């Protein structure tokens, strides 16, 4: 990786961290359970990009496998909470 690309990727990581911090505010203040789960879903999908960036920086392909499992677990978590809100779990 050359220098300019590395600096641009660092900037992208910083912007993603800022976005995750703002989403976490909604996770804290969200009035109902639905709002909190929306913020949780967006947090996990946003951190998929952050984990992929870390994998590129560390040059370890294993982190991408972790990424796939992480996305799968967040999907299942949102579905399960949806069933719980519907009171059919």
């Amino acid at each position: 990786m050359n220098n300019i690309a590395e600096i641009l990727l660092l900037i992208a990581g910083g912007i993603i961290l800022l976005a995750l911090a703002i989403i976490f505010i909604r996770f804290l203040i969200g009035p109902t359970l639905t709002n909190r789960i929306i913020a949780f879903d967006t947090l996990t999908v946003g951190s998929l990009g952050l984990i992929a960036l870390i994998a590129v920086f560390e040059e370890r392909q294993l982190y991408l496998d972790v990424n796939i499992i992480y996305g799968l677990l967040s999907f299942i978590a949102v579905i399960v909470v949806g069933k719980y809100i519907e009171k059919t779990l």
Partner: protein
Amino acid sequence: MEYLQIIGAVIVVLGSLVLLIAAIGLIRMPDAYNRIQVGTKASTLSVALIMIGLALVIPSWVGKFITILLFVMLTNPISSNVLMRASHKAGEPLSQVTVIDKLKEDEDNEKNNSNGTV
């Protein structure tokens, strides 16, 4: 090769900016239905842009990046649809400026029809 990496890094920065827009929308939107629309659409686009950009930065890992991209694009709309349908059924309030609620009309029609026939 170097130009390809720089183009990929610029696409990654664009994706992170889209995620920032999603975060601002989550704070500013009035009710949960608008928030899930902003959150799901923008975060899916941001993951897609980030994966495409990183695939340009490291071309030998393109298979796993495309796998993650396809997985997120398949599952994210499904999970948001299930969540909001459930919370609409549980009575999540709409914002004051909402003028139309098609799902409630459909449910009412269904209830009336079943009562009439049975």
